[in-house]
């Protein structure tokens, strides 16, 4: 009964082992630290995929385990990205502006420096002053705090309002969808204070590491993403095991019954919703420095729907399923849309996969939902069953 958490959950050990091996292989073959077989841009792609896996396991906990089909978790991911992006952009612009002003005979006052940085950053949207939401942008620790605080608070307030009114099922999904759409539309405006549709860019340049080659920076972010995924996996595996897991799965299956057992269902939903939103924010903060740019299109509703598709194809209610689904679908997506997939000539019509990929994805989603609700994770169960 008192065996350690890892001993009771062998799948967590397996996952960590495989992730560790994968990280080692990438390290050995990367340009920065190894033979150079894997290009820097591909290292970035892999690192970004790890971040997507992290938000996917968060989605699996909120949907697969707790039964809340949130179609808005990418909003939290995007907010995490914007929060870190504000510091990255501020600090880098400040360095550049300070260097150029240093050439002048009279050194600039802090106010002059700040104004120059502001007009540099907000010139594209016709503004030259820092909006109030940038007040902490000068400080990395404060912006890192925002990465967890802003998604967490938004989820807490939104969740409290929605769960308290007992909004469930498809109505809740629509509400979450509306939340991410509203946020996306708001950020598209030039006066939102986050540069409108230009978004934040140049995020791949890390202030203080100007001399470090991108190959090395990508590697560092890849390692950080792998570490975050591993920690997130252990955290969620711990949450969904034991009594907490029991109660949240019970809420998914019959929330009225759980209420009559004396559990305050809304608090549990709020806990799961907020925790997963925070993890989504952290995933976003690791993703966007690797992507280099963030703009409001990133948090359009379609992104959150993709997230649900990954989890459904991977298999709901098992954490490794979410990872499998994400890796499988994003790899397939880049293969089909990257031009590598051969066109199929039907004589009268040629199927170009760049056009038909979304159709294929949609059909697979429907097929998985109808025919194999266990998703790819179900295959793992079958293999395990055969061995046993």
């Amino acid at each position, binding site marked *: *009964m008192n065996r350690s958490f890892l001993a009771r959950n062998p799948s967590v050990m397996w996952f960590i082992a495989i992730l560790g091996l994968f990280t080692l292989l990438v390290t050995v073959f990367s340009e920065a630290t190894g033979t150079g077989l894997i290009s820097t841009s591909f290292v970035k792609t892999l690192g970004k995929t790890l971040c997507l896996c992290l938000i996917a396991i968060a989605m699996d906990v909120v949907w697969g385990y707790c039964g809340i089909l949130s179609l808005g978790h990418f909003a939290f991911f995007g907010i995490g990205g914007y929060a870190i992006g504000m510091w990255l952009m501020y600090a880098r612009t400040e360095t550049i502006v300070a260097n150029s002003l240093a050439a002048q005979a009279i050194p600039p006052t802090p106010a002059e420096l700040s104004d120059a940085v502001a007009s540099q950053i907000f010139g594209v949207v016709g503004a030259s002053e820092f909006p109030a939401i940038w007040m902490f942008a000068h400080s990395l620790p404060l912006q890192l705090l925002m990465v967890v605080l802003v998604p967490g608070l938004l989820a807490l307030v939104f969740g409290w309002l929605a769960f308290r009114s007992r909004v469930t099922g498809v109505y809740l999904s629509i509400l979450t969808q509306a939340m991410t759409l509203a946020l996306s539309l708001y950020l598209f405006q030039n006066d939102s204070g986050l540069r409108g549709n230009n978004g934040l860019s140049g995020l791949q340049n890390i202030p203080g590491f100007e001399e470090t080659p991108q190959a090395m920076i990508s590697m560092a972010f890849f390692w950080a993403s792998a570490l975050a995924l591993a920690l997130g996996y252990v955290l969620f595996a711990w*949450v969904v095991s*034991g*009594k*907490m897991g*029991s*109660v949240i*799965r*019970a809420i998914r*299956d*019959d929330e*009225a*019954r759980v*209420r*009559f*057992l*004396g*559990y*305050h*269902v809304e*608090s*549990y939903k709020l*806990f799961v919703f907020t925790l997963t939103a925070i993890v989504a924010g952290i995933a976003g903060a690791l993703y966007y420095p690797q992507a280099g740019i963030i703009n409001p299109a990133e948090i359009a509703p379609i992104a959150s729907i993709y997230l649900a598709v990954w989890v459904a194809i991977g298999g709901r209610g098992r954490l490794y399923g979410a990872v499998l689904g994400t890796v499988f679908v994003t790899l397939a997506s880049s293969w089909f849309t990257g031009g590598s997939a051969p066109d199929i000539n039907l004589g009268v019509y040629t199927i170009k996969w760049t056009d038909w990929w979304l159709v294929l994805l949609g059909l697979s989603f429907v097929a998985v939902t109808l025919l194999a609700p266990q998703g790819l994770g179900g295959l793992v169960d079958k293999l395990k069953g055969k061995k046993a």
Partner: protein
Amino acid sequence: MSTLLEMSGVSVTFDGFKAINNLSFQIGEPEMRAIIGPNGAGKTTFMDIVTGKTKPDEGRVTWGDNNISLLGLSESQIAREGVGRKFQKPTVFEAQTVRENLAMALKNPRGPFDVLFYKKTKRGAERIEALAEQIGLSDSLTRPAGELSHGQKQWLEIGMLLAQEPRLLLVDEPAAGMTPAEREKTTEMLVEAAKTRAVVVVEHDMEFVRRLNCKVTVLNEGSVLAEGSIDHVTKDPQVIDVYLGR
């Protein structure tokens, strides 16, 4: 025997239909009580009001030694006060094992963080073993509840109720769909439970009610028609008229 639950002058209207009409009801602790009545008499609505699922339009529902009102409390608060409810259809969590079902119901702090940092205790494990013994599911602790037979699910649900250690047990048609042997065992469980707490059984089956051997309340059109021993109420001409005669 002190009064545990008292309802007085309670009325509920659904779209103009008076489901409960000036109902007054009392139960002591410990006590076994059977509630019978034709369809639409308000039996389920009565349970919904006690458990907080339905809020009455008027009337009072007071509970316990300090006569607190149950009307301002949510379902989960009422459950924590010590009201346990068994539904007509067995509702256990089928995807989880018998042990997990019982562990969830076990009387323990119910807050999310209490549950997150919950440590399995020897006492809890022993309590689960004892309950499983009581409901005849000792050998099935690691089986998913979905695999159990209909009767076993009913017992598991009764076991979960007992695990909550409620002061009042509301049981809706426990004998429905059971074999005679299963009924007998269910009767035993309920009679045993009623030795230490209040138990209200809503039942259609007269034979089952007779075997419970307790005071009977007859509901009709949302209010109490008759109350007393089973022999007393079955001789009541009004009861025969609305219920038994048909």
